[in-house]
């Protein structure tokens, strides 16, 4: 075999050996313990900060809302879908039993036209596919520019929850 071909094979061998060597060093230690991924990744994801508490946690204190909600169209909605993430609110609630929670821990109270139409705006695409699983009815939809618009100049001030109880619409 000519000299340069031998060297070429040698060079390839060096690259392969280097790769195998680097592989043993660089391969993450927990890799392959459970499957073809870093086992530590699960732990790392577990350590991530949580934001949502879940409805069960909310109704421990806000029991009246639970009874309201249970019989209405919004029964299957999670509280935090409208009120925003509330883990901190729930965690610190006990510490302010007698008084009010500071503003930074208070949750959002939606109810304006801008907010309710996120789900209830007239939407040709939604009509066909979104069903309320309990009553088997569609999500009610309105055209916010026309629906019960008493004062056209004050569109923003017309608040949905003045007529509809958001927990039992």
């Amino acid at each position, binding site marked *: 075999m000519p000299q340069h071909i031998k060297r070429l094979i040698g060079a390839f061998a060096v690259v392969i050996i280097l790769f195998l060597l680097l592989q043993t060093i660089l391969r993450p230690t927990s890799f392959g313990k459970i499957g073809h991924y870093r086992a530590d990744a699960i732990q790392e994801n577990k350590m991530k900060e949580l934001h949502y508490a879940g409805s069960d946690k909310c109704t421990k204190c806000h029991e009246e809302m639970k009874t309201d909600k249970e019989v209405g169209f919004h029964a299957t909605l999670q509280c935090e879908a409208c009120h925003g993430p509330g883990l901190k609110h729930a965690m610190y609630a006990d510490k302010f039993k007698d008084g009010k929670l500071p503003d930074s821990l208070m949750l959002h109270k939606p109810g304006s036209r801008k907010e309710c139409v996120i789900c209830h705006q007239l939407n040709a*695409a939604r009509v066909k596919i979104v069903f309320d699983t309990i009553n088997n009815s569609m999500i009610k939809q309105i055209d916010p520019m026309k629906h019960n618009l008493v004062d056209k100049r004050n569109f923003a001030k017309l608040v949905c929850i003045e007529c509809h109880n958001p927990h039992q619409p």
Partner: protein
Amino acid sequence: MTQHIQHLYEVLSKVDGYVYPNEIELNWSILIVLYPYITGLVAGAFILASLERIFKLHVLRPTYGIALLTALSFMLVATMPLVSHLGKPLRAYEIMVTPHLSSAMAIFGFVYLWYLMVVLLLEIWFDYRRDMIIWAGETTGLKRFLYRALSLWSTDISPKAVALDNKLGYIVTIIGVPSAFLLHGYVGFIFGSIKANPWWSTVLMPVIFLFSAIVSGISLVMLVYIVITRIRKLKIDMPCLDTIASYLFYILLIDFVLEGLDQIHRIYIAEESFDVLHNLVFGRLFFTLFIMQGLIGTVIPLLTLGTLQFYKPKIQIRKAIYTIISPLILIGIFFMRWNVVIGGQLFSKSFYGYTSFKIGLIGTEGYLMAAFWLIVPFIILSFLLWLFPPWKKKEDDHEIQVG
């Protein structure tokens, strides 16, 4: 908490109709457009080089070396858009040290390594080994060291050794052509095999990607050749350019027909996804699909190059036409990738809504980043052309073909 709701408003202002929550933001942006674009340029440039080598089209000789070095420069950068797209780019090596065969994405490591190490580097090495040894004797300093090291300190330039190089190089090129097809067919395969996405999921996808890759690679080499000859103040080899242009015309024609077939098939079978795609094509994708890819990148080049097949104007005019048409095709193919990658994410898989795509100037997914990864291959190419000038090679190379 109001800022969460505020954020929701902002996000929803991008959306029309109904989309699933994970479809609002596009996960694959311009860098993922660049990846098939750059790999396509590699495959195309290599296939042009192999036309000369395997099919013995000696009229293409002036572009052979340029095509190979262009392929290598772009190949070295092909992974970089993917790496810089990662949320944690410093972990990118992990994919390389944990290879496996169970996902189409992971196969890229093997395809890439095979093509880079076994095809491109080997072919260039066999092609330049003798020249590197000769040049090492004529130069000094760093350049001399580079030539010596890259030729692995070999010294044998006897006719027998050179003939063996040529024979092995020839074999590598023969392996290289299906490998180039595989490389780019593979990129199309990744998109074509995503069956949940009706814009991507077509068995024609690998073939369409492959032909558009060949088109873009040939245009790039054509442009690079014109620019280099102008910089070196030499006379352009018109028979060579004319031959490239005619190949470009035929392959562009095939590419156009294939894409047309794909669309006609879509229109004819009109599956349940048809309406959403119809609105996509005439709405959000109209400019990039019909104007950039269709008109600028395909129809104008096809008509111009087609005319040149029957009517040959003066050399100066032909040269000007090639100088204008090749970037137009390159732009068109870029937008073909854009329409596939971005277009496939603009509509909801519920088929009931659309999201929109906005790209920033700066940031890891911005225009500047994309421009950077498009410029880097040209810098590498300049270096490679300085180190391995194809025009300084001893001719008669491929004539000593054994067998």
